[in-house]
């Protein structure tokens, strides 16, 4: 079992630890619901060091990436981040990743913890002789990653002295902390304003402690994986292994916005063009009492029409809601569906996505 550099911090904070992707990670410190609500109202601190970092370097790095990912690398400037699914040849999702452009010949990929080895092998395998001047480096064991999320996160970062006022959403800066370069980006997985920090392992503990101390005045609390999941689900961000899967067509999983079909060539493009899509990702709200969970059957009339991909009690909305991959027919908003919860058919209705607007789409 692996541990992140912050393991002892979690233990000293009395976190309940669970195995996640081979890492002992905190699922909660006090209560999932309290931690979730605290992020929406104030700010929360997440250890996401289990995630992976892969560098792609060289003269041909950009053109290699353009072939590798479904989104358009030409949209990237130095200091910017882009989100993209990595597709396989059948149009399914290998992983969903972030790509940071450090300079013209250096890109940093941030990948899901459960897919680090798989993604690295995938990238290696597809690095054919077409791209001579490219090298790839799995940096996952060298770097830690911390996320600070919530409406008070900007005030906290300002207090710690980092100059980030000019940083826009999906941009990053390389900044010095204790004489070492760290990366701070305006990214996150909660739907709130926030930052993600990538830094060498040796710096992580002092950075975490520093933020927790400075953050006391802003009600900063540590947040575990339990609330990380309920937070992303409320804003309908997809999760690999749930909405995104190797054998589910990417355009059915709600990530079409991050796929640029105008690109001439990328892995999976042909499959997306040629494969008929019969399913669609819908959001639903329980009408009768019950909590939907991943894998539960979804029914309409006498027919099974698909499966729940994610479901939970959502703390901000105080409702049981979920996402499901279902047959495209009869999926209008307000349509009635039934979720098979432990052999009982429980009524639900299809609703608009997202359940809660992420910060960048809110009116205020």
């Amino acid at each position, binding site marked *: 079992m692996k541990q992140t550099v912050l393991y002892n911090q979690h233990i000293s904070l009395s976190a309940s630890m669970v195995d996640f992707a081979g890492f002992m990670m905190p699922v909660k410190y006090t209560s999932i619901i309290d931690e979730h609500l605290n992020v929406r109202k104030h700010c929360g601190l997440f250890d996401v060091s289990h995630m992976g970092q892969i560098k792609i370097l060289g003269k041909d790095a950009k053109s290699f990436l353009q072939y590798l990912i479904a989104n358009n690398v030409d949209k990237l400037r130095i200091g910017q981040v882009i989100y993209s699914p990595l597709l396989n040849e059948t149009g399914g999702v290998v992983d969903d990743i972030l790509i940071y452009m450090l300079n013209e010949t250096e890109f940093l990929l941030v990948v899901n913890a459960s897919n680090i080895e798989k993604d690295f092998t995938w990238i290696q395998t597809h690095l054919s002789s077409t791209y001579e001047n490219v090298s790839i480096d799995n940096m996952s064991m060298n770097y830690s990653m911390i996320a600070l999320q919530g409406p008070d996160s900007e005030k906290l970062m300002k207090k710690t002295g980092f100059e980030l006022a000019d940083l826009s959403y999906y941009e990053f800066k390389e900044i010095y902390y204790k004489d070492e370069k760290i990366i701070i980006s305006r990214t996150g997985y909660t739907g709130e304003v926030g930052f993600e920090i990538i830094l060498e392992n040796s710096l992580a503990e002092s950075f975490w402690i520093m933020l927790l101390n400075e953050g006391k005045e802003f009600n900063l609390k540590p947040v575990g994986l339990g609330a990380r999941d309920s937070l992303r689900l409320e804003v309908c961000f997809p999760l690999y292994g749930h909405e995104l899967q190797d054998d589910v067509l990417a355009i059915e999983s709600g990530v079409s916005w991050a796929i640029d079909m105008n690109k001439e060539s990328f892995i999976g493009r042909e499959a997306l063009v040629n494969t008929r899509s019969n399913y669609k990702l819908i959001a639903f709200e329980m009408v009768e009492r019950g909590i939907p969970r991943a894998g539960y059957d979804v029914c309409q009339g006498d027919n099974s029409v698909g499966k729940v991909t994610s479901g*939970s009690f959502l703390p901000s909305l105080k409702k049981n809601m979920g996402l499901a991959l279902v047959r495209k027919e009869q999926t209008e908003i307000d349509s009635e569906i039934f979720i098979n919860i432990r052999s009982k058919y429980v009524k639900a209705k299809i609703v608009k996505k997202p359940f809660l607007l992420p910060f960048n789409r809110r009116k205020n």
Partner: protein
Amino acid sequence: MSNIPEDLKYDKSHEWIKIEDGKALVGITDHAQTELTDIVFVELPEIGAEVKTGDVMLVIESVKVAADVYSPVNGKIVEVNEEVESTPELLNQDPYGKGWLVKIETDDSGETLLDAAGYRSSIE
């Protein structure tokens, strides 16, 4: 470290039991409530329901998971803790006190149940 009161009996499936005057008071252990995380719903059984040892007696739903709670004895449900229906957090906050679940009328002596030490080694 999980809280495991010495004066109670336990089942491997994480129920605690206190048998007094032919009635078994039952709840879930501190270990169980920690594993479940935030409990959001408890579906209590009907009063009068007959249960056998090992039957699924009720279901607890947390943010993360749904869990069956098993009857540790043979008998009849004579009382249920309605407070946990309106305030399911009681199971997290006070699993051995305010978070009790049911009272079962039973002839069982509870001899086959685990004591605190036995339960502790079963979860380690």
